[in-house]
């Protein structure tokens, strides 16, 4: 078993600074157990989404799905930094955030495949992954809405005095919709324990975010409008993200209110499964593939002295889990038709008359 000797390694120290503004420079040391857990989770996310893509090509994943390939470090870091009773709110690009909270892969894949064994028995689909028991309070497919809902969970935690925080992930495009403004304003004036994480992957859907936004950093440059510090970080660096996450969560838990974090990253695929992403310049894609967070983190762990055999064994185990969850998901039958009229109302049914 690997030892703790990398714990104090200099590469594990993330110096936090933002090009957008002078944010306090802090050094945070990521414990090695956490770093290994983040790497393992990133392998799981990467393997899961690649498999989802393969199953789509085979006609087994139905409908639409939005992959977060290349954006894993953000989800993995927050997954480690959050307490088990904290709340996650994600978008339709939410597979990684769901797995980050410890939701098992098989029911998530079964949900993508429209099977009875799916996380929501096939009633939600890829864009609405929810597992309340894991603190995964939902994936939301209308841009902006869930920022306001995350506020509600944070408000509730404050009223109930539970010290829980809500973490809300969204894309760069969300910064231009009205709900973003309403949510940030309310969170700030009510000092809610909520962390807003903008995953700026440079592309809205098919249009570059900078083509439709008057400031360079769509979230960070707007933070001052809510009395918040601008925070712009490398979203492909899991250690940096972990440090930022830990700090923001601690401040929210201490009653210091919300944070708005802009994490720079890149969507390696298209917007959705129907989109090959051909509109992106080849050199842009190539340069971001060189900054792929998963191999980069592996290289860092190796450089920090984690034995290669340890990481290879980890990858073998995750690969086996991917195969196993695929078989479980494939073996699940389609959901029964009687589910159609279940759970519209709390009585379990759909009756609107008496």
């Amino acid at each position, binding site marked *: 078993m690997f030892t703790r000797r990398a714990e104090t390694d200099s590469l594990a120290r993330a110096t936090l600074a933002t090009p957008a503004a002078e944010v306090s420079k802090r050094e945070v040391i990521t414990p090695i157990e956490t770093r290994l857990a983040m790497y393992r989770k990133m392998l799981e996310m990467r393997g899961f989404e690649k498999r989802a893509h393969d199953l789509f090509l085979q006609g087994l994943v139905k409908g639409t799905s939005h992959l977060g390939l290349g954006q894993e470090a953000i989800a993995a870091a927050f997954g480690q930094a959050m307490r088990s009773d904290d709340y996650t709110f994600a978008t339709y690009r939410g597979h990684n955030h769901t797995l980050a909270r410890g939701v098992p892969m098989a029911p998530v894949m079964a949900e993508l495949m429209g099977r009875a064994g799916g996380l*929501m028995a096939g009633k939600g689909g890829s864009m609405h992954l929810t597992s309340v028991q894991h603190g995964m309070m939902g994936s939301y497919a209308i841009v902006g809405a869930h920022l306001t809902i995350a506020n509600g969970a944070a408000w509730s935690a404050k009223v109930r005095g539970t010290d829980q925080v809500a973490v809300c992930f969204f894309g760069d495009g969300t910064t231009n919709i009205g709900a973003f403004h309403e949510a940030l304003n309310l969170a700030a004036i009510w000092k809610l324990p909520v962390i807003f994480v903008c995953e700026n992957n440079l592309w809205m859907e098919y249009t570059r975010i900078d083509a439709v936004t008057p400031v360079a950093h769509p979230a960070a440059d707007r933070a001052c409008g809510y009395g918040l510090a601008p925070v712009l970080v490398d979203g492909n660096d899991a250690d940096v993200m972990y440090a930022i996450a830990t700090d923001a969560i601690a401040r929210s838990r201490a009653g210091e209110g919300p944070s708005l974090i802009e994490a720079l990253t890149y969507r390696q695929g298209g917007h959705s499964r129907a989109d090959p992403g051909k509109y992106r310049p080849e050199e842009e894609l190539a340069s971001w593939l060189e900054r792929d967070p998963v191999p980069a983190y592996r290289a860092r762990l190796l450089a920090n002295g984690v034995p290669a055999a340890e990481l290879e064994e980890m990858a073998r185990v995750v690969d086996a889990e991917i195969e196993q969850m695929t078989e479980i998901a494939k073996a699940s039958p389609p959901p029964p038709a009687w589910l159609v009229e279940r759970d519209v109302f709390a009585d379990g049914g759909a009756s609107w008359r*008496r």
Partner: protein
Amino acid sequence: MTYRDAVAAGIAQEMARDDSVVFLGEDVAAAGGVFKATAGLLERFGPERVVDTPISEQAILGAAMGAAMTGLRPIAEIMFSDFFAVCWDIVANEIAKTRYMTNGQVSLPLVIRSCNGGGVRFGAQHSQSVENWAMAVPGLKVVAPSTPRDVMGLLAAAVRDPDPVLFFEHKSLYPLRGDVENGEIVEELGRALVRREGVGVSIVALAAMVPRAIEAAEELDAEGISAEVIDLRTLVPLDVSTVAESVSKTAHLVTVEENPRLCGWGAELSSIVAEELIYKLDGPIVRVTSPHVPLPAADALEDAVLPSVARIVEGVKRSLG
């Protein structure tokens, strides 16, 4: 007690009973509401449970939803029901669908109160009757009381209900006085009430149309026509049984709806009666509605739009042939 005072009394009854009930909205706390329907709640329950918000309807309803899914029972106010149009995403896409999409994982015990309807000359963006918007969305319960006692009793039922409820108070009824006995008042959602018994025709009405229907029934009485008036009270669940029982007796159905004509609740009720009770009917079903127009502001014009006693009387006579 007035209909207006019954709002604060109903909220207070539930907040005193259950610490998880919180109340938020624009100008609801320090100002006591633009119609003064929530005066005194801040003083009694404090700023943590009675909260003023910015003019941010999406943020209000998102906060209510997130709070409801994590252990509170929020009451949110949308000042005028017309403003649902700026936060309908949270209502129709999020609140209404989340229990279903999550296969029952998420419960949303919340109430959204709003003042609805015309008669006070506020024009097309502060006077609409939008209850039929709400009724069209699966997953919502829809309530519209016509008396002070029902404001209290149905509000209590809505707060205690495990599902999201849209609660439409009629702004023209706020000054209305009615008897409310002492002690806890709790009604049941989904029960219509026969407000006036009769044998010749069933007039089904909602909210501000109920007193008008009763007035029309009294005029008809003088002409020897015995009209039964049913106050629907909730649109979802829809109490078809009470209507069916009445129509089976009277053989005539007239609905009185304030909403613009197309796809009003009376259309759904008429189709159910036509489908299930056609052989009990002795005349055409008649819908008395607002015409399919936005609501004009001038008193003379607004009065021409809203169903009047005269139009209800005329509608009954058409049904009776």
